[in-house]
């Protein structure tokens, strides 16, 4: 089937595919820097001004950063991913009685 052949074609050139993906990420970062720098003067400042009045503290600060610093959401996405994996794994190995949250498959049929 053609689809399988296409996937195999890509898998045979894995290092090239990886390089292309890194290229896409780099392009995305550059595009976002351009976007924020271009719109920085008016739009972003107005938007944050409005929200900063209504809320203070951590989240308001984060919002301000999100609106003004380019590539914020790239960093957010990456950190989110790492946080989710580590927190979940930590949770999975918590002790509950004699077992961990991640228990043996026959836990319920002893």
């Amino acid at each position: 089937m053609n689809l399988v052949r296409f996937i195999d074609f890509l898998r045979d050139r894995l290092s090239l595919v990886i390089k292309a993906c890194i290229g896409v990420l780099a392009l995305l970062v550059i595009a976002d820097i351009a976007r924020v720098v271009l719109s920085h003067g008016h739009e972003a400042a107005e938007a944050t001004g409005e929200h900063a009045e209504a809320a203070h503290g951590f989240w308001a600060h984060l919002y301000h950063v999100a609106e003004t610093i380019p590539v914020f959401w790239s960093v957010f996405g990456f950190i989110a991913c790492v946080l989710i994996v580590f927190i979940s794994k930590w949770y999975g190995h918590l002790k509950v009685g004699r077992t961990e949250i991640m228990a043996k498959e026959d836990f319920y049929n002893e």
Partner: protein
Amino acid sequence: MSNLWIHPSLIFIVGGLLLTVVPQAMRKVWLILVPTIAFGLILKMSLNLGTFGVVHVAGFELTFGRVDRLSQVFGYIMGLMAIIGTLYGLHVRRSAEHIAAWTYVAGSIGALYAGDFITLFLFWEVMAIASTFLIWFRGRDQSVATGYRYLLVHMAGGVALLAGIMLTYRATGSLAFNPLDVANPTAGTWLITIGFLLNAAVPPLHAWLPDAYGEATFNGSVFMCAFTTKTAVYALLRGVPGFQILIPLGVIMALYGVVYAVLENDSRRLLAYHVISQVGYMVAGVGLANLDTPFGRLAFNGVCAHAFAHILYKGLLFMGCGTVLHQTGESKFTELGGLYKKMPLTFILTLIGGLSISAFPLFSGFVSKSMIVQAGFDSHMLWVGFLLMLASAGTFLHTGLKVPYFIFFGKNNCKPQTWEKAKDPVWNMTVAMSIAAFLCIFIGSYTPYLYSKLPLQDVVYQPYNTGHVMETLQILLFTALGFFLMLKKLTPEAKISLDLDIIWRKGGPAFLWLAKKPIQAVDNFVGEIYNAGGLIPLMRTSRLVGIFDSAVIDGIVDGFASGFRNFGARLRGAQRGAIQDNLTVAFAAAAVLLLAFIFIF
């Protein structure tokens, strides 16, 4: 006028009953025809909104057909999903499976169009009972126990709902299913909300969902993932829009599902945890949906849009993983891998579902989820927006990456016979998945299709602007980067993750001990007082208690419970242990406690 109105649920129920007498040659035609007629009927109802099917029973006014824009948007997508789901299981020979699925759909659609709480409750219970069969029909040893757990949890939720309805009726004198006063919630409002929240699988009332959806038949889960939780979302949106407690609950839900999805090894249980996560967005949206505010109106539309999109992409994902299960008999990542070579079409279609749920631009999640997130930011509750964004990264991590990767790529863990059996499915399953996949892309690419169906037409929302697209792409692509960097850590382990269902799975014996010892002690003590005291007022009370005991408890609760037990005994064939007996006792006791609570109130 009202006598011309035909309820779409009726089509499903009558169609299901007639399925047993339809000749074999006509069977597949009939299976397609019935949901199509029902869907046509729902479409036609859009032309004539209003209230239909009003019936007077024992002094109560029951409204079977409240047709407005809110019930229509849910009715439309559920009617459509019934066609897709039936098509997917078209080759299933056992009529009872189709009848159960259609009765379940009928319950769901009946609840959507219910104009009063009694009608809502009736269809609510139909839904719970009919869907239990979709688990039992799996036919494994553990299916029976899982089905009972599912049924009992939903019966408990039903009791809470009914209690809330009774209290609300006593307080207001009205049974109309309209928005409750969420600014000053009464005990009735709380109980009704708890009943809804249980069906929406809000923690800590959620553990039934992965338990059931992981165990149901390959096509049963396709129905179940679409109807129960989304009917509950509809009920919340209709009954308690703007109930603020739902905002934190929804956000917790969205993150809770993500954490368990990291740990999960069974693909369908992973998807089930992601149902919890996605419904979390909707529950938070209902909490935001205060119709007096612009962000609340956006959230109101957002909940409808997200439920609409969710039914299609989650159905598609369950169809994809259901296909792998149907073909190979395996659903665990540690028993699968590398299947793209054998099931390329299934891979592509599952991937489309994964990209849709992850809210990639041009896919359906992008145009629906963002409405709720935007409403969160607009409400100035910025933490809602950010934490929902965090959950979005988790969604892509699991459903967009983990599911396709560890089934279709990754290390090939397939046993020789699994590998041998793996191939793309029969035509009807492929067509059903393709329709859902097409709609996922269509909704994401052509927004008027979905947006024109939303209830509040004055709300303007435009998902495609540079900022939003860039934001989304950055989060998703950098999450993907994290995924591939941490691939080793993410490799599934052959384990199960304990969830709160441990309370009733391991707590059964503990509960029985509790029921036996202290209650027996109290019983003896009370008996002593009766014997020793012999006071007249006390005697009168005890006589009343006796009447109450024999008439209400023995009659209703025991009758109900033993009915189910007998039914189960006939169904199960060979059944180990006394789990049903234990559960029935536990259920009866819980029902008595609840009833006692209401009477004292």
